[in-house]
Structure formats: structure tokens, C-alpha cells
């Protein structure tokens, strides 16, 4: 081993560490600015801005129930965040997670209600089924992109509308419980639903499933052959093809896998937090998943942190809204702004790398 050639590696480690800290600081800065905007809004709407701000920042920690809300909100975000991560790793910007999250649990509940066993087996199969249906949602946009290079963003967005209308039709005409006051399906039996794990909150065992998925996805992306293929495809698709990667399969599968994760996420959310299927529109979790993936820098291992942060912001806003007459829609404003600022800071680091590549191209003389 030639030490001389690698003696620079200490300097390199230093440099990498600096970059990491630099990157994190920028993210924090972006977050701080977004929160700053929040306070301005609070000041406009509220008679007592300081109390409002306090309830936003401290809200999620002000009681066990609210803390629980934060954890509960983060669970579905982990699933859709993972889905977005996997798709982003292959540079596919698909929103199919949204539709999969909506349709998967619908199929699951249709199954669950009619299956003789109403215990653990039912739960397990329901979740798997939700995942499979979610994966099936990803097949269409995934195939179109792989085969004909059809813009996955537009197709998945349009397809989500189709899925939602279709699901709504099924809900209204096949699964609807006439006895229920609002639009909802028949009720799930308690034994199928996921158990609560923290007394005093609604936090359910879906959390464990979510974390298990985080581990699986991390290993998948960084430690498996197909994960390597995905990363190369996302990094330089021409290169991936050139070395023999089946890019058709990669581009297709990442949307299927994304749909799978989102479908499981939706089903877990249903079985953990609700006793009936009552969604008449998508929850917009596909977009939220993208936000989480950005926060996590496309790294599945960091998704729980991104998800938790977003959940924190959500719950904080809810608390603030309830207590201080600030509309809950503020959260979209914050999220949009935060996402904008965070991608800016995150990409400043990536951009530096791209500039490196560009200068390599120019230095090719």
C-alpha cells in the first residue's frame, strides 16, 4: 500500500468534516429563517404573539398527549419519506407515493373486513396487501417512464387523481357504512388494529414497523447490488447503462418500491390511528415525503429525523392554531418555505460537487 499517495487522506477527512458541519449549519439556518417567518405571521394574526410563538415551539412537548401526536404524525412521514428517498436516489421525481398511500389501505380494509380471522394474521396480511396494491400503483408510471421515458412527475400526478377518484368511488359505493354520520367505511375490529405502545398517547406499534423499514431501506441502498445499481443510475444514467446495469428495471422498480412503502405506510396509518377508512382525498403525504427526503439528504437512515422534524412543525402549528387563533394552514406556508430554504442549503453543498465535475470536464485538456 503506497502511503505517499494516500497521505492526503487526513487532509481529506478534515475537509469532509468541515463540509458536513458547513452543510448542517446551513440547514439550521434555513430552518431558523422559516421559523422567523412563522413568528412574523403569528405577530400579524395573534393578539399575543409571544404566547403564540411559545405554544408553537413548546407545544409538542407541553403534554404527553401532544408529544404523542408528534410521534404519531412522524410515522406515516417515515414511510413516505423512505419512498421518496428511494425514488430520488435514482433521480426519479414521482409523486405516486401520494396515490399509493391512499389506495393501499383501501384494499387492505376491504380484505380485512371480509377475512374470517380477525386477529394478528389479518393484520399482517392486510398490511402486506396494502403494500402490494401500493406497489401496483407504482407499476403504471414506473413502466411508462422506463419504457418510453414519459415524464414521471406529470404522469404520477395525473394518475394520483385517477386513483383518488377510483378509490372514492369504491368507498362510496362498496365499502360505505350507512350507519356512520360522515363518509366512512365499516369499522375495523379492534383486534386487527395495531396496538398502542405508549399509554396516554395514540402511538402505535406501527412505529416499530416504520423503523424496521428504515433499516431495511438503508441496507438496501448502500449494501446491496441492486441498491448500487440504483445509485449509479441516479448519479449518471449513461454510465449505469454503459456498465451493464438494467436501467429499465431500476427506473421501473424504484417507483414500484416507492409505491410499496407508501402503501404499507398508508395501511399502517389506517390500522394504527383509525377505526374506519374515512379519507375522501389524498393526505398530501407524497409531497411531505419529498420534504422529508430532502431533509434527510436522500439517505434512508436519516429519514426518521426528517420525519420527526416535520411532525414537530405540524404539531407545533396545530397547538398554536388551537390556542391562539392562528389558522392551521400556516403549516403549509412554513413547510413550503422551509422546503425551499432547505433545498437551497442542501443543494449548495451538492452544487459545489457539480461544479467540481464541471471543472473536471473543462480540465479535460
Amino acid at each position, binding site marked *: 500500500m503506497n502511503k505517499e499517495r494516500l497521505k492526503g487522506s487526513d487532509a481529506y477527512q478534515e475537509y469532509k468534516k468541515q463540509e458536513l458541519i458547513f452543510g448542517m449549519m446551513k440547514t439550521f439556518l434555513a430552518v431558523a429563517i422559516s421559523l422567523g417567518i412563522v413568528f412574523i405571521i403569528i405577530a400579524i394574526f395573534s393578539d399575543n404573539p409571544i404566547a403564540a410563538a411559545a405554544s408553537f415551539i413548546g407545544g409538542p412537548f407541553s403534554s404527553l398527549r401532544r408529544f404523542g401526536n408528534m410521534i404519531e404524525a412522524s410515522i406515516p412521514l417515515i414511510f413516505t419519506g423512505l419512498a421518496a428517498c428511494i425514488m430520488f436516489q435514482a433521480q426519479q421525481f414521482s409523486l405516486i407515493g401520494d396515490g399509493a398511500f391512499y389506495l393501499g389501505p383501501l384494499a387492505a380494509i376491504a380484505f380485512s373486513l371480509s377475512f374470517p380471522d380477525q386477529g394478528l394474521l389479518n393484520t399482517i396480511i392486510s398490511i402486506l396487501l396494502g403494500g402490494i396494491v401500493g406497489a401496483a400503483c407504482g407499476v403504471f408510471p414506473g413502466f411508462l417512464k422506463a419504457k418510453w421515458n414519459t415524464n414521471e412527475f406529470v404522469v404520477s400526478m395525473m394518475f394520483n387523481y385517477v386513483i383518488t377518484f377510483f378509490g372514492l368511488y369504491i368507498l362510496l359505493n362498496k365499502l360505505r357504512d350507512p350507519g356512520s354520520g360522515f363518509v366512512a367505511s365499516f369499522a375495523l375490529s379492534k383486534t386487527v388494529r395495531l396496538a398502542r405502545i405508549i399509554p396516554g398517547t395514540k402511538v402505535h406499534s406501527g412505529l416499530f414497523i416504520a423503523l424496521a423499514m428504515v433499516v431495511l431501506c438503508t441496507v438496501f441502498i448502500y449494501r446491496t447490488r441492486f441498491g448500487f445499481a440504483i445509485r449509479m443510475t441516479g448519479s449518471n444514467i449513461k454510465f449505469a447503462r454503459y456498465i451493464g446495469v438494467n436501467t429499465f428495471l431500476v427506473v421501473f422498480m424504484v417507483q414500484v418500491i416507492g409505491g410499496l412503502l407508501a402503501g404499507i405506510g398508508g395501511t399502517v396509518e389506517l390500522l394504527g390511528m383509525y377505526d374506519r377508512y374515512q379519507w375522501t382525498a389524498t393526505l398530501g403525504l407524497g*409531497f411531505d415525503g419529498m420534504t422529508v427526503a430532502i431533509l434527510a439528504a436522500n439517505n434512508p437512515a436519516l429519514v426518521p429525523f426528517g420525519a420527526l422534524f416535520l411532525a414537530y412543525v405540524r404539531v407545533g402549528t396545530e397547538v398554536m392554531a388551537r390556542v391562539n387563533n392562528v*389558522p392551521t*394552514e400556516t403549516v403549509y406556508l412554513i413547510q413550503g418555505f422551509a422546503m425551499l430554504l432547505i433545498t*437551497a442549503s442542501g443543494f449548495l453543498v451538492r452544487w459545489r460537487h457539480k461544479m467540481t465535475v464541471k471543472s473536471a470536464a473543462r480540465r479535460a485538456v
Partner: protein
Amino acid sequence: MLGNLVSVIFTTSFAYSIFRISTSLIYAGMAAVLAENCGVSNIGIEGIMLISALVAVIVSALTGSAFWGLAAAVGAGVAVAFILAYFIFHLKTHFVLSGLSINMFAKGATILMLFFVTGSKGTSTTLASKTIPDVSIPFIKEIPIVGKIVSDQNILTYIAFLITGLLSYYLYETKSGLRIRAVGANPEAAASVGVSVAGVRYKAFLLSGVLSGIAGAYLTMGYMNTFTANMTAGRGFIALAACSMGHNSPWATCFAALLFGTADALSSSLQTINFPTQFVQMIPYVITIIGIMLYSIKAQADQHAVER
């Protein structure tokens, strides 16, 4: 049922409604065309439209003037487009993610603004907002059949076609348009001769903002006269699809926009004759998907023909 269908579609009022419904899409489509030609898609058209739609209502109510409502809407469109452009071209954020952020931001901001001004979180019916008038064209409206379709449309509808023509001229016959296309095709080449790539892209995006602003204003001042939460309903994205199908060129995109407008009109008509609602509502989106699918199949076949 088929008889019913035919009697609904083959009427002048149906044809009339196509133009009425497509107007917003045409402006949004032109906004998309401008951005695509400079090399970066404007994913934020949806959000810009939404914000402009609300601004139009508020300002026209406050000032009592439709003109100022429209002007403010355009101003808002430019402002938001500027912010988006700043993030993409200055801070180098990814154009898809920035666009989506703007859309999300718009979703929250519009409801907040609505609430602030009217106290309602759903609609702006309490505001006495102004509308942009329809125009009755003297000779044309006497012509049988054609007259009923072409005359008495909204001013903005007529202007939409004018804008399409102007944009076509702008892109292909002016220095500015040539630079936009050059920057979109090969930014390095343009930079090497001293064209400011960022400058050209900013300009394209700001113009895109103007057109998105008009698209939004039309929704609340021509098509309807109130603002409802999330009323754009994906039109900004359908505009992107139309632009894809139209090969980034103004007239072809206009035609694609009309196609989608037709699908939308169809879905409304079908609802009156008892098709199951959800399947009817799906129609515009299904047609969009089929449209893009066919377009990309063709594009790839062309590519393969080149290699044959």
C-alpha cells in the same frame, strides 16, 4: 344514453364552453412554453395561478376595478416567479423541488390571506370582487352556429389566442426569443458568446409569471367570480403536460390545451346525464395521461428511427 351524449356534445353551447374552460389552460400553457424553452421547467405555475387568483379578487374588490384586479394579479405572478427564479438560478435549488415548495407555500398562503381578509377559509363570496366582461362581436355573432361559439366570449379568451401568436413571433422572430431558445438548447454555447444565461432565464421566468398571473386572474374574474380554496385543481400541471405534448411550441401547446379543455367540458356534460361522478371526473386526467403517453411513444419512435 349514447343518444343523450350526442345531443349534449354536438351543440353550440358545448363548443362555446370549450373555449371558456380552456382559456386558463392556454395562458398557463404559454407560461409553461416560455419556461421550457429556456431549459428549466416552471413547476410552480400551479401555485402562482392560485396566488394570482386570490390577489385578483381581493384587489378588484378593494379598488372596485377589474383592471386593477388583473394588474395586481399579474404583479403577484411576477413577484412569485421572481422568487422561484431566484432560488433556482441563484441558489441553484432543484427546479422540481422549488416549484413544489412554491405550490405548497401558495396553498397555505392563499387560505391565510383569504381568512385574514374575509374571515372565511373556504370562499371569497363575501367580497364584492369585479369580473372581466365578455365581448359581443357585432357581425360575427350573427353567423349561424359559428357565431354562437365565437362571439360573446370573455375578452381574456380572445386575448389568449392573440398571446399565443405573439409568443410564437417572440420566440422565433426576435433576438430575445432566439436567445431564450439558445440558452435552453446549449447554455454553455450562449455563455461563451456573452449571453447572460441567468439573465435570459430570469426574463423567461418573469414572463412566465405574467402569463400564469393572467391564467389565475381569469379563474376568479372571468370563469367564475369567487375564489375557492385550491381552485386551480391541477391546471398548472395540466399546462405542463400540454406543453410537453405541444413540443414546447406555442400553437401546438394551445391546441393541446384546447384538447384538455374539451375533456374537462366533456366531464361536466357527462355528469348531467348520470354517468358515475368519479369516473367522469377522472376523464380529463386520463386523457392527459394518454396524451403524454402517446407523445412520448412517438418521441421515442422518432429517436429510434434516427438510429435506424
